[in-house]
């Protein structure tokens, strides 16, 4: 099967006028994003805005209502299944939970894509797996089972697994959520390091502002189905949008109110029994 992947264009992922809804609820309402090759691009927004959904759309696991997503020149949702699978071998994805296969050891988890997709010799697979585990600092944990790993370690194993086929890009779904400060620091550093050392393109989805801003070249802020702001971390910190200010500095009240929409407080208290 001939399947060419464009290795040169400046824009690796091109999202145009994306619309997607779940039942009645519109999750994306005309989103345009360009993700540049070789950069770390962060997509930020509060929980439930559809960040995970966006990654699944890029990976071709969900079908948009309208609009296009092109990865390396291919419209993800128009590819045949076989071609989509070929493309996915070039796209790593790190799920929020790590998504390690619970019945395989760390070594076998990382070796899994190689065993499925290549005909490499045993010794070769061993070498590649150990290199990748070494890169995430877990060469010594190769014989552990996923249940024996801490949250940070599972994510690092999952990282090793996502880079084992040497993909052109990797997508991280909330890599910092629920990590202790040390694991957080390790993950932050690893994402930048892997991006630069392996010449990859990284997409980081997160709501941890400080950590994400520290490593990203570009940030897109997502709110209510639209990209409301994008630019370098410095540009965003100086943004004039109150919403972005509230999000970037984590203020409890602002354009996003502290109170969930409700009827007037006094009316509510006095009106209960009428």
């Amino acid at each position, binding site marked *: 099967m001939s399947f060419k992947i464009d290795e040169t264009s400046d824009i690796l992922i091109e999202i145009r006028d994306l619309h997607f809804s779940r039942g009645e609820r519109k999750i994306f309402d005309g989103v345009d994003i360009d993700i540049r090759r070789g950069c770390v691009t962060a997509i930020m927004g509060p929980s439930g805005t559809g960040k995970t959904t966006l990654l699944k759309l890029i990976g071709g696991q969900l079908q948009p209502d309208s609009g296009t997503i092109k990865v390396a020149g291919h419209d993800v949702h128009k590819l045949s299944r076989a071609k989509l699978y070929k493309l*996915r*071998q070039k796209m*790593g994805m790190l*799920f929020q939970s790590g998504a390690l296969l619970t019945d395989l050891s760390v070594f076998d988890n990382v070796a899994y894509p190689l065993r499925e997709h290549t005909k490499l010799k045993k010794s070769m697979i061993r070498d590649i797996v150990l290199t990748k585990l070494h890169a995430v600092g877990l060469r010594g944990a190769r014989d552990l089972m996923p249940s024996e790993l801490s949250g940070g370690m599972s994510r690092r194993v999952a990282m090793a697994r996502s880079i084992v086929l040497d993909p052109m890009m990797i997508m991280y779904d909330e890599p910092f959520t629920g990590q202790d400060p040390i694991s957080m620091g390790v993950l932050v550093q690893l994402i930048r390091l892997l991006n630069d050392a392996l010449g990859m393109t990284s997409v980081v989805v997160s709501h941890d502002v400080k950590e994400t801003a520290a490593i990203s070249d570009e940030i897109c802020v997502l709110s209510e189905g639209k990209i409301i702001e994008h630019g370098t971390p410095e540009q965003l910190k100086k943004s004039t949008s109150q919403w972005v200010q509230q999000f970037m500095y984590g203020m409890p009240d602002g354009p996003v109110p502290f109170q969930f929409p409700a009827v007037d407080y006094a009316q509510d208290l006095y009106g209960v029994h009428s």
Partner: protein
Amino acid sequence: MLSNTVQYLIHAFWHVLEHAFQRLGRSHIFLFHIILGIPSVLVRPLLLTKQIYMVGVLSLIIIIVSGMFVGGVLALQLYYELLKFGAENSLGVLNAISLVRELGPVVSGLLFSGRACSALAAEIGLMKATEQLSGMEMMAIDPIKRVIAPRFMAGIISMPILAITFSTLGIIGGHLIGVDLLGIDEGAFWSQMQDKVSFSSDVMNGVIKSIAFGFVATWIALYQGYDAVPTSEGVSRATTKTVVYASLAILALDFVLTALMYGEI
């Protein structure tokens, strides 16, 4: 007022029906994909062996124990009834025929639903909830081929073996009670059985039934797990539904198959 209620009921009924048909459709598409995935299982026998162990071998204990008890109790019941007609020597035949034709496939099918299918549904549901299935898809590995199809094959292969084991142990249990305890003539017990139980119409029909039960029960379990809502509540519901639907399907199918095999309808 009344017409409103009626309208509401019709609407609700239609809604339920629509969803039921959607699920039925999805489950058949799912089955179609599994069947397409079977060739890829055959080239990876190791995946299949592991699942046969999980689904079949681990169910053996409950099958063996229940087989012994069901066979023993059956012999006890038959003995006192047959004694009234002076036909206690036919105990072996009756025992064997009931086991091989009915009780073996049906009871082991029900036990299989409770022991193996519930575990399958929970396992697949949890794999979905922990994003392992999505993870495989993103690694360009088809979870239907690697995860679902081997389990499906394992269910179909294990079920007839379990049913035969059940029947065999039932006959041994019947022998223990009938011959060793109640003192029926051992020669009559075996020779009548050999004479009257037909391999092609009794034993083989039992095997065919159990293959059909394995097919349906495993399909239900895998579909329920794969289609589960990916939360702990969703997985627990999927497990319960699996046992209920698989048991009912086995009983209904048994009726149909028995009518086709032995009936003159």
